[in-house]
């Protein structure tokens, strides 16, 4: 029998990871069994429990300064499946818990089971699917096995696609179908890559693979296939065609989760692949390609966002651009230059601040559309006076997208800029500055007509409670800009060990 190396040893508190997955899965089964309005109660009841588990995991990792590890059924890899939570897993778990909790409470107004019926299709589906998204994201963030991650990616797709077409309107069905096609393409390529890696190394455990990795041709092919698949799911340019219609047509609460979290799920797996499994591969060509695609996405997404007539589409195109920034982490946080810590912190900060800012903006867009009856930007004149809180949230979110201080987006872009200038990779810096200007342009396009004078009749004023939820998320996005240095040390937990490998 092979002796268990220290990287695979189970740590105290590891069973929290199992609990983090079991809680939403049990809640899904309970919602499904009880049905009707119980699904809503179960989902809302799950949010504090899930948040508490996520925070408990983060506290454990922070105290020990090392990743949490748990072997399912006590079997260590390569035969068993390991669950691991490092610094970035923890922050993503907490972010997912906060954004999903906010989306759930925000969605109560739209997805309450109507009086007089015991069960309605859309509410039941929504409450079950949002818990399924949570379960899938949790598995993605703590999964330690490439095949396990494949199953989690599929679960995420199956939960996210129906969220797009909850209303059942034809255009939402087309958007959902197109999303599904891209996602299926992505998952089957990922699976093929996983098969090749298994063929080369006889394991799919991330830590074992990182130790055994050698630059074989099969590994390069597998890495290419898996990355292409993950990019299709993350909607990186030029595989982005599905994202704007899907995110713009979904109900606002679902858009917040899809744009804020779901695309980050496949991005997270890409990070796992390139920074944990493959960092010992030589050369920086692949990272440069990913960075170039990210740069193209920043420019292309921002320019298209500038040209949109409808607010939700504008926000969806801005997601394309902000996803581009995420991929600058690959050239800036890899290689040998001494600024990789900045690139890493900047990329993760962008992931977090975009999750909060974009969720807040989609929620505000939903409130606007409900109050005005449309979301055509040209007809917003006077709306800023009628719904000041909603536009304040859009402005705060926009602050983070542009990267103006003080905001999480500023911290992210500043760190990425510093890394790119210090590492002599200045083209990324130029793209980031151009992206910031373009973002300022499209945020101005939302706010300028709203703040101009005009008479506007609201169908109904937005509910204070729902505005407060969106505001809370936007404030978190701003507050991330004040993260102390110890937060960035936390993001490095579990990373030092893998980069130190030969």
């Amino acid at each position, binding site marked *: 029998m092979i002796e268990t190396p220290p990287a695979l040893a189970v740590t105290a508190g590891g069973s929290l990871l199992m609990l983090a997955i079991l809680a939403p899965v049990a809640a899904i089964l309970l919602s499904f069994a009880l049905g009707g309005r119980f699904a809503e109660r179960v989902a809302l009841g799950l949010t504090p429990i899930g948040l508490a588990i996520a925070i408990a995991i983060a506290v454990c990792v922070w105290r020990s300064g090392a990743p949490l590890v748990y072997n399912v059924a006590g079997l260590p890899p390569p*035969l068993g499946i390991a669950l691991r939570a490092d610094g970035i897993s923890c922050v993503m778990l907490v972010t997912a818990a906060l954004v999903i909790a906010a989306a759930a409470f925000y969605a109560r107004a739209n997805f309450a089971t109507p009086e007089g019926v015991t069960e*309605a*299709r*859309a509410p039941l589906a929504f409450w079950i699917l949002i818990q399924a998204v949570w379960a899938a994201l949790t598995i993605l963030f703590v999964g330690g096995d490439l*095949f396990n991650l*494949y*199953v989690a990616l*599929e679960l995420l*797709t*199956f939960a996210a*696609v*129906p969220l797009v*077409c909850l*209303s*059942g*309107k*034809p*255009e939402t*069905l*087309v*958007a*959902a*179908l*197109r999303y*599904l*096609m891209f996602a*299926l*393409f992505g*998952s*089957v*390529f990922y*699976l*093929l890559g*996983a*098969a*090749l890696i*298994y*063929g080369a190394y*006889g394991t799919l455990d991330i830590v074992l693979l990182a130790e055994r990795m050698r630059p074989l041709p099969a590994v390069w092919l597998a890495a290419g296939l898996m990355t292409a698949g993950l990019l299709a799911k993350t909607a990186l340019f030029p595989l982005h065609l599905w994202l704007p*219609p899907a995110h713009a047509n979904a109900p606002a609460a679902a858009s917040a989760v899809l744009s804020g979290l779901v695309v980050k799920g496949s991005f997270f797996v890409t990070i796992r692949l390139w920074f944990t499994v493959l960092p010992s591969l030589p050369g920086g060509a692949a990272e440069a390609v990913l960075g170039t695609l990210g740069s193209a996405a920043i420019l292309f997404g921002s320019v298209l966002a500038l040209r949109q007539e409808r607010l939700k589409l504008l926000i969806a195109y801005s997601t394309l651009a902000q996803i581009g920034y995420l991929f600058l982490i690959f050239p800036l946080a890899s290689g040998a230059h001494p600024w990789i810590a900045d690139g890493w912190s900047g990329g993760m900060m962008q992931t977090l601040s975009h999750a909060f800012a974009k969720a807040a903006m989609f929620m505000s867009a939903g409130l606007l559309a409900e109050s005005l009856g449309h979301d055509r930007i040209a007809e917003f004149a006077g709306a800023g006076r009628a719904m000041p809180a909603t536009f304040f949230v859009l402005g705060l979110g926009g602050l983070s997208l542009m990267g103006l201080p003080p905001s999480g987006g500023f911290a992210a872009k500043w760190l990425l800029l510093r890394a790119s200038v210090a590492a002599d990779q200045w083209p990324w810096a130029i793209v980031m500055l151009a992206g910031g200007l373009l973002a300022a342009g499209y945020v101005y396009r939302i706010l300028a007509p709203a703040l101009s004078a005009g008479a506007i009749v609201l169908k109904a004023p937005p509910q204070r409670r729902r505005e407060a939820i969106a505001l809370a998320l936007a404030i978190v996005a701003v507050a991330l800009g004040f993260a102390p240095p110890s937060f960035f040390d936390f993001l490095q937990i579990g990373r030092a060990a893998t980069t130190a490998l030969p």
Partner: protein
Amino acid sequence: MSASTLAGLVGAALVGLGLYGLIVNPQPLRKILAFNLIGSGAFLVFGIVARRGAAAGFPFDPVPQAMVITGIVVAFAASALAVALILRLREETGNVSLDSDAPAKPPGDGAGAS
């Protein structure tokens, strides 16, 4: 040519054919069939990979076979979801196309059918 090589080549050919179909065919149903073709290719490659378990003393490595079974279940679920979406789209619009400018039937009781 050994049986393993042949199976590997057939798997690669299936993936290639499926990818071509997925990109070229505009009809969603054909795209789903193409997706299943790529999936079959990937499963075949995975199955052949199981032969390498012979080094560990097994006649076959059982782990990839377990993964293939899981993969087949997932692909089946994905196909079912896609077909359900296509059926619903046909119910709503009368035609099935991924073209977003397709003419839409006036909105009926969109949330009614369960």
